[in-house]
């Protein structure tokens, strides 16, 4: 279980992720996308989910029992190769339903002061 005091807290990202042309190409190849000028719409998850995982594991959540409930992206501009993105994450809510713990995490990807993509993930920790 997550400790209740974590809910509502924002964890500023410490690391900067450099988006490489290779990482965009690898993601695009999986879905058959041939336009490599911008990242595919869900590319941001490759940065945000990893940081959420680290954050939530550090907060006591059993990642091996996590399933993805839902996902939302708001894309202010497409991610492109060369972007240096910092990910900050906020635990927006954590509640228990039918024995399952349901955690909602928002992650914001900034390039300098510019908000590039916001993601919302609902994660379900199976009882």
């Amino acid at each position, binding site marked *: 279980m997550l400790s209740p005091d974590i809910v509502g807290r924002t964890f500023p990202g410490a690391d900067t992720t450099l988006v490489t042309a290779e*990482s965009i190409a*690898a*993601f695009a*190849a*999986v*879905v*058959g*996308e041939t*336009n490599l*000028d*911008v*990242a*595919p*719409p*869900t590319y941001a*998850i*490759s940065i945000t*989910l*990893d940081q959420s995982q680290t954050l939530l594991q550090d907060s006591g959540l059993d990642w*091996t*029992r996590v*399933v*993805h*409930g*839902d*996902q*939302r*992206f*708001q*894309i202010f501009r*497409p991610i492109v190769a060369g972007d240096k993105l910092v990910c900050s994450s906020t635990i927006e809510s954590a509640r228990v339903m039918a024995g399952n713990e349901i955690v909602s995490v928002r992650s914001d990807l900034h390039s300098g002061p510019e908000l590039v993509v916001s993601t*919302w993930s609902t994660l379900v920790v199976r009882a």
Partner: protein
Amino acid sequence: MSTLEVGQELASKSYPINRELLVAYANASGDQNPIHQNEEFAKSVGLPDVIAHGMLTMALAGKYVSDISGSAAVKEFSARFTKPVVVPAGVDVSLVISAKVTAAENGLAKLDISASVDDVKVLGMAKATISLA
């Protein structure tokens, strides 16, 4: 893109999902959860077999949307993962995606997206907002 009209049904496309694609997606996304690659592990946690990453299904739906608008025009995209996509060894599972235009005004269009495997919906409330500019 300005030809999209409210109520318009967009043609369905099918996307094969197999074990090789799951490995490729795991490597591209960094999500190496063994339930998406290791049959023994998946069964040990109560799953019928290896399942696809929900985000792979969503990424393929994203490709469907990109083919309509271009990747750069996708402004919002959301989905619920309602049913796991089970991927047995040596099989191409066919993910079928279609969409309906629910709004088209002020340079933006909204799509309701349907994604199913064997006529069972695997995404719920899947929606995208695309720029028509």
